[in-house]
Structures are given as structure tokens and as C-alpha cells.
């Protein structure tokens, strides 16, 4: 009876969304006080999502765009509940699964309103899965906006430094960005004849060049705000610092990638003529492509330089996220195979690495030392008292710097090669960013863990002089998972590149595939 029943495992990907939201709902109805049950259920939900992502990824290598589900939602307007996955989506779904599992692991010590925390967390994860898997523009937008509200509450309730301000700033910046995208969406839908909101249909709708010329920067900027493009990035460091560890990991790791993904899937794929030369050029800038590439490069250098000047450990990581996202946006603007492949790989790589960095700084160091000020950490000699954290940060720092052997190197190298082909000056400037990246990472590493400042008993008002709490199993598991993935991809990048490259090729060839 079941001999004909061969569902494509990729179609299981829809369950990542459903399970996450179901898990969130389950957390809401759980009786209060059952913290342990809440944690394990959340972990189970996250692991289930990861497992589905891995299975779908493994069984679909070599396949192009796979439609998962296509149900008419509002038939009279051509809106469909259309989920589909190409190589880029599958890689990013994998990233989300990893970030979700790591996030739950690093939130194991939360004691206050645990149900609500994991409910918002899982709702955010569900929204993120939804964006990566949507192939209908309206549906993509719905999931994109669904992700905004949980972010606000996660930061406002469980955050630290200036959390209410940071949460509101993040929510409003994200909402303004999505408002810009909505205007572009409505304009594109109406101009294409109001027949359909499917990405494939809109890509083939032959929108006029003049329309694309104004719609592209609007939509791209709207998404790029969430991707942390300079000068709209200021919500990111504030928000990441204020957020609780798991939320920072998700925000820097995955949510910023939502913006970059939108830039790629909606901006570049649907409105490619928006990147055409204008016909005139001003100080070397002759198209929106040049504009956004320059902004990306500025972001790389600016983020790195500002990170170098920070006194708060978490701010260093926050600004480094802005800098690394600049590489993603630069890669997207190269508009060639290798640069854009590098951009997608950098999305994955930075997602893992940022998660790892925030986990170390937030959960492992801050929860024990109760300070993030580098000046105070200098006096604590954490390399002796928290050796696990020190070594974890060495590994994470190497990955973040772009050292060969880790995923960041492969990604950044491809972006730089791609941008050299497009415009050598961008590469030169981005190269400066890499050098400064080494500087701020080493500075933070040295100050926080390996400093030579002598210990004075009265210098640590925050810690009680005893040994720090032992490293717990969720922390070890989380660090191993993330560092291991980054190392694996760094040593054998083909596991991901084999999936990304064909998808990028198809996207460059004819709009959304």
C-alpha cells in the first residue's frame, strides 16, 4: 500500500514552521513553575526543527527549487500559501535550526517567566523559518513582520543594558524597514497587474525599468535596515547588547540574515534592473549597485573601527556583526557567481560565529563575572579561572577573524574575489576591514582573557572572590556544536557550496528560478 508513497523529504521543511509555532503555543499553555519541562520541550522543538532541516538538506543535494506546499490563500488576489526551497533556503534553514538549538541551550539558566521566554523564542524561530521558506511575496512579508513582535518582548523583558529603549528602537527600525518593503510590495503587485504575489510570477512580470529604478532602492533599503547596513545600523549594537544571550544569538545570527535574504530574494531577484547603470556617474558612483556596495564597504570599515574603540565586551561583538554583515551586502552587490556565493556562505558562517561569540560573552562570561567592561575583566585573569571560556573565545575569535580552517575564511575570500572582479577598490577597502577585524578581536581577547594586569583584591566589586560557577553541560554542548560546524564548513566547504552554487547560478540567470 505504501510502495508508491515516496514523499520528497524536502516537503517536510514546512514542519519546521508548524512545529515552532506549535511549540510556542504549547509553552503558553504550560502551567507556570514547570521550568524544567518548559526547557526540555523547547529544546525538543528546536532539535526537531534542526533534524528536519538536516534531513531535507542531505536528501536534496543536487535538486533545484522544490515546491513544498502551494495552497491558494486569497485566490481573488492571487495570493498563495506557497512554500518552496532552493539551495539558498535550505542552507539558511539549517542555520536557523542550529541557532535555535544553541539558543535554547544557552538559555538553560533563565529562571524568570520561563514559559513566556521560550514562547516568544519559538515564535521568532517560526517566523524566521517562514521567511526562508516562503516563495510568495505576501507570505514572506507576513512571516517577516511576525518576527518583529517577539523580538521586542524578548529584549524588553529579559534584557539588560537600557533594554526598554533598545527593544523599542529595534522594533521601530524593523517596522519602518518592513513598511518600506510593504510599499514596494504593493507597488510591484499593482504595477504587475494585481494578478499574483508569487515570487516566480513577479520575477517574470516584466516590470518596467523606470519602475524598478525607484522600487529597487526602496525595497533594498527596507530589507537592508534589518541587515544592519550603514547608516541604518544603529539599532543593532544597542539591541544586541541589551538582549538576553539567546536573543542576541538569534538577532545577530539569524534575524540580520533575514534582511540580507530579503535583499537577495526580493530586491535582486525581482527588480534586477534597479541595479543597472544610471547613465551618469558621480565620484565613481553610477548605479544603485555602486551606492549599496560603497555603503557596505563603509559598514565593514566603520563597524570594525568602532568595535576597536569599545569598552564593553558585548559592544565589540555587536559592532563586529555590523562589520561582518557588510561583507554579506558587499557580496550581494558583486552580482557575480563567486561573490554572491560567498555572501550566502557568509550569512551561514557569520550566523554560527556570531552565535558562538554572543554565547561566550553573554552566557559564559557575563553570567559569572557580572560585568562586561573590558577594563574590569582585565583584572580577573579569566584564562586561569574560566579556561573553557578562554579557549572557546580563541576558537570563535579565529573564526571571526577569517582564519583559514574556519567557515569565515571561505566566505570572505569568495566575497573579496567577487568584489575584485566587480571593482578592485571595494576589495582594497574591505581588506582594510579584515585587518582591523583582527585588531579588535585580539584586543578583546587579550583584555578579557589573557591580560597581564596584576590582581588587586579591591578591584573587583562584582565578584565575590570565590571560584566561578562550573561550566554546565548545555554550554559545552552549545559551544561544541557551533564551533564544530564552523570548523567543518571551513575544512570542507563543499558540503554547503554544492548546494549554494547552483541556486545562486539559477538566481543570476533568470530572476527567481
Amino acid at each position, binding site marked *: 500500500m505504501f510502495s508508491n508513497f515516496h514523499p520528497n523529504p524536502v516537503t517536510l521543511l514546512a514542519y519546521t514552521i508548524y512545529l515552532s509555532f506549535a511549540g510556542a503555543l504549547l509553552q503558553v499553555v504550560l502551567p507556570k513553575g514547570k521550568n524544567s519541562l518548559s526547557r526540555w520541550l523547547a529544546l525538543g522543538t528546536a532539535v526537531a526543527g534542526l533534524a528536519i532541516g538536516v534531513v531535507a538538506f542531505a536528501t536534496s543535494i543536487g535538486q533545484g527549487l522544490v515546491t513544498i506546499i502551494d495552497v491558494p490563500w*486569497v485566490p*481573488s488576489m492571487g495570493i498563495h500559501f506557497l512554500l518552496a526551497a532552493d539551495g539558498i533556503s535550505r542552507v539558511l534553514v539549517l542555520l536557523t535550526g542550529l541557532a535555535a538549538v544553541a539558543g535554547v541551550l544557552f538559555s538553560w539558566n533563565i529562571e524568570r517567566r520561563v514559559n513566556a521566554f521560550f514562547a516568544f523564542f519559538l515564535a521568532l524561530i517560526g517566523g524566521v523559518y517562514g521567511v526562508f521558506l516562503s516563495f510568495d511575496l505576501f507570505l514572506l512579508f507576513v512571516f517577516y513582520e511576525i518576527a518583529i513582535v517577539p523580538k521586542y518582548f524578548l529584549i*524588553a523583558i529579559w534584557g539588560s543594558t537600557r533594554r526598554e529603549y533598545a527593544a523599542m528602537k529595534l522594533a*521601530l527600525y524593523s517596522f519602518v524597514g518592513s513598511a518600506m518593503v510593504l510599499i514596494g510590495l504593493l507597488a510591484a503587485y*499593482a504595477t504587475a497587474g494585481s494578478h499574483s504575489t508569487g515570487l516566480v510570477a513577479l520575477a517574470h512580470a516584466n516590470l518596467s525599468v523606470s519602475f524598478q529604478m525607484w522600487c529597487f532602492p526602496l525595497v533594498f533599503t527596507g530589507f537592508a535596515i534589518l541587515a544592519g547596513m550603514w547608516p541604518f545600523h544603529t539599532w543593532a549594537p544597542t539591541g544586541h547588547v541589551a538582549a538576553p544571550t539567546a536573543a542576541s544569538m538569534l538577532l545577530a545570527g539569524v534575524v540580520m540574515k533575514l534582511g540580507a535574504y530579503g535583499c537577495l530574494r526580493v530586491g535582486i531577484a525581482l527588480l534586477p534592473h534597479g541595479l543597472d547603470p544610471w547613465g551618469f556617474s558621480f565620484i565613481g558612483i553610477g548605479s544603485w549597485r555602486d551606492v549599496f556596495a560603497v555603503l557596505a564597504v563603509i559598514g565593514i570599515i566603520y563597524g570594525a573601527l568602532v568595535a576597536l574603540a569599545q569598552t564593553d565586551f558585548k559592544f565589540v561583538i555587536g559592532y563586529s556583526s555590523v562589520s561582518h554583515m557588510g561583507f554579506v551586502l558587499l557580496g550581494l552587490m558583486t552580482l557575480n557567481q563567486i561573490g554572491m556565493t560567498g555572501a550566502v556562505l557568509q550569512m551561514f558562517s557569520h550566523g554560527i560565529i556570531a552565535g558562538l561569540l554572543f554565547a561566550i560573552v553573554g552566557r559564559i562570561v557575563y553570567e559569572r563575572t557580572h560585568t562586561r567592561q573590558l577594563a574590569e575583566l582585565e583584572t580577573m585573569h579569566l584564562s586561569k579561572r574560566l579556561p573553557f571560556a578562554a579557549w572557546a573565545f580563541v576558537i570563535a575569535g579565529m573564526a571571526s577573524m577569517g582564519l583559514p580552517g574556519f567557515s569565515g575564511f571561505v566566505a570572505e575570500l569568495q566575497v573579496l574575489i567577487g568584489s575584485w572582479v566587480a571593482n578592485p577598490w571595494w576589495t582594497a577597502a574591505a581588506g582594510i576591514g579584515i585587518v582591523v577585524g583582527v585588531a579588535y578581536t585580539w584586543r578583546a581577547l587579550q583584555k578579557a582573557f589573557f591580560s597581564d594586569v596584576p590582581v588587586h583584591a579591591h578591584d573587583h566589586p562584582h565578584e565575590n572572590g570565590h571560584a566561578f560557577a562550573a561550566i554546565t553541560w548545555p554550554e559545552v554542548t552549545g559551544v561544541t556544536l557551533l564551533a564544530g560546524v564552523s570548523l567543518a564548513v571551513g575544512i570542507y566547504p563543499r558540503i554547503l557550496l554544492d548546494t549554494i552554487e547552483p541556486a545562486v547560478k539559477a538566481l543570476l540567470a533568470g530572476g527567481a528560478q
Partner: protein
Amino acid sequence: MNYSDLFRVTLPETMLEIAALLVLVADLAFLRKAGLKARVFSAILFGILGCGAAFWALQYSAGSGYSFDGALVLAQGGTALVAQAGILVLTALTLLILAGEDFTRHIGEFVAVVLMAAAGGMIVASAQDLLVIFVGLELLSLGLYILTAFAKTSGKSAEAAIKYYLFGGMSAAFLLFGFSYLYGLTGSTNLVEIQDALLSQGPSPLLYVAWILVVAGLGFKVAAVPFHLWAPDTYEGAPAPAAAFIASVSKVASFALLITIGASWHSIFQYSFNGDSGEYLRRLHSYAAIWSSTAAILLVVAAASMIVGNLAALAQVSVRRLLAYSAIAHAGYMLLGIATLPHNLTSPAIFIAAFNRILGANGTSNAVLYYVLTYGLTTIGAFGVVAVVERATGSDRMDSFLGLHKRNPVLAAVLLILFLSLAGIPPLVGFWAKFNLFAAVLGVSAGPIPFALVALAVAMSAVSLYYYLQVLKRAYVMPAVDETPIKTHPVTLLVLVAIAGAVVLAGVFPTLLQGWIEAAYR
């Protein structure tokens, strides 16, 4: 004068009036000695039964309207049917919110006035004649003035009622004056005949004066800028069920009226198949000339309402005033839908196609109706929550909501859903209503001005998230000052949960309500 036809068409209104009388009789004659609870129960029960009977009676009135001397006086089907059904449902919900309220002992009178005002709203929604419009509007408005003043022990209630009444009286005078000019220009009070005459005459200065006066009168009803100044005080002072009624039913009736006035230029089409193409083109150009300036006035009012409503709400500390300014902003979005003009008037075929989009499926009138119905539903829920918190804490300031998630988690969840829907967050119905409306506006008319206004509307929507989050922040994030649980009347809680559920359901499955509205047009 066909009285049986008139009776058939006004059967729903008659049901409401009978129910009002029954409520009064039961309360004044039989329940004088009974406790307040029994009287509230009986009044609400009769009220709901009346609404149900009127809903059932809609099937008889639908089909064909009532005509006097060959001219349609009361329409049925289409806009009228949808609006009337919506009014009845929203009235029933308002009555249910009344359970547990203690602002007055004269519960029978309150419910009777609500029902009579609802009957006025029904007449407004189906009126096709200037005089009938005025009668309906006055019946609705007088009821609303009385309802606003019902909390006799509250000074604010009396103040709000006086302000509302004075404003309303002036606006009614303006409206009647504008109507008299329209009569003077065209010699008829029937909407279709007026439009017919105006199209053959073409634009004239007197027409613009008349139109401005009419916009002043109707703009007051929907709380559009600059006729909005009554709204914050009225929403603040009126008892919660009255404010909910004003914010929902009165808006539905007024927008149905605006749709009737703005979109029913049927007579153009009379000439399209008579072979009289010269006359047709002349009327087409007349239409363009008239409607482009009248629409421009509506667009200005819409833009101003969006801007003033959202920006003023940012500064509010009282949640009721916040809801009032947000009502002004939402009225702005809806007026954008009313003001849409088919962009391409160069050829009759294109015009007809665009015009059919206004009237037909996915047209702006459908979208406006969808928006106002769902907005009314959400607002009733919002006022229900505010009423409960007010009763428990004594004030409606934002800080009374502190720690609501601990004091009554279900109420806090309902508040979360309703306010996020008002802000336009998917997958709630508020987002779909906005998207539908803006897509419809852009689908009918393309060009820089509609795009710019839709962009303005979306931008203002983004601004609105801030002030809704301020209240939600108090409810969920900030520490509570007082952690005693807040009790709600079980009926109130049930109704609020049902409204929140409907908001989520209609947002996730938009075709449910949308399909029903489209079916009513066929």
C-alpha cells in the same frame, strides 16, 4: 405609496424598535423591584434577541429596495446589506460588553437607546435619498449623544456629551445646508437623480460649496481632520459601551453612506449601451471634472487625518484618548479608499473596467467595508478591555495597565492581540484589512498621487506601532505596582476572547469574511 413594500424593506429596523420597546416595557413595568443583575440580564437578552431577529429579517429586505415615485429611496443588497449585517453584529457585541458595567441604574433606557440608534444606523446604511439620509443620521446621532451622557455621576460624561452634541448639531446643520444646495442645483433629493443631473450639468462653483459642506457634516461623523476635535473628549468621557458603540456602529454606518455617495455614479452607464456615445463621453468628462476636485478634498482630509491622528496619539497618556486618536487615523486610511478615482479616463472601456474594480470584487468599496467592519470589531474588544481595567483600577491611564499579564493573563493576551491588530501586524485581521485596502487603491488608480498617499499611510502605520507598544509594554514588560488579580464578568471575558479569536481567525483566513462580503454584492 406601497406600505407593505416599505414594511418589508424596513423589517430589520422595525425588529430593533420592537425590541427597544420590549426592553423598556420589561424594565419599567415588570422588573421595578428586581435587582440590578436581573434587569441587566433581561435588557441585554431582549437586546440580543432583537438584533438576532433583525438579522433574520435581513433576508426579507434584501433583494429589492423601496422606491417612491420610481426613485429608489432605500437600497438593499450590496453595501447596504453588508453594512446592516455588520451593524447588527457590532450592536450585539456592544450589548454583551454591557454585562458587568455599573455606570448606570437605568439599564433598560440605555439598551433601548442603543437599539434605536442602531436602527438609525441601519437606515443611514441603506439610504438613497438626502432626506432619508438626514433622518437616519439624526436618529443615530441623537441616540449617541444620549448614550454619551449616561454616566450621570461622572462629570466627564456630561462634558463629553455637551461637546459631542454641540459639535454634532453644528455638523448636522452644515450637512443639511449642503444638501439644500444639492437640491437647489439639481431639483431632486434622490442620489441617483442628483448624480444624473450633475453629470449633465457639469461642474459648477455651487457644487463645490455644497460638497465642502457635505464633507464637513460627514467628516464629523467619521472623526476626520479637521472635524475630529470632539473625538478624544467623547471617547474619554462616555461610558465604555457607549464609546465602543460610537467607535464601531456609527463608523460603519457613516462609511457605508460615504460609499453610497461616492461610488454609485450608476447613471453614467445608462448611456453606454444606448448608442448615445456623444452624451456618454460628455458625462464621462463631467464626471472627471467633478470627481477630481471632490476626490482631492477627500484626499486632503484623509492625509491630514492619518498624520494628525497618529502623531497626536504618540503623546497620549490616557488609553481612551489614544484609542480616539487612533480612530481618527484609521478613518484617514478608510477615507483614502473612498477618495479613489479611476486614473485613466481616456476611454470608456478602461473607465468601466476601473470603475467595476471600485464596485466589484477586490474593489475599494469592498475593501473599505471590510476595513470598517473589522476595525469596529477590534475597537469594541479594545474598549471592553479598557472598561475592565478601568473598573478595577479606577483610571484609564496607561499606568493602570502595569503588570496586567500577572493580574489577568487572559485579558492581557486579548489586549495584545487586539492592539497588534490595530497596529497592522500580521497574521491578524488589521494587517489584512490594511493590505487589502491599499492594494485595492493602487489597483484602481495608479500614478504618483495614489502611490504617495499609500506610502504615507504605510509610514503612519509604522508610527502607530510605537504607541500601541507603549500600552503593551505596560501590560507585559514593566513591573506591576499592584498585583491583585483583576476579576472580569464571565460574559465579558467570553466575548473578549471570542473577539480576539475572530481577529486571529479572520487574519489567518481572510477569505472567510471577504468571500461573504463579495457574495453579498452578487
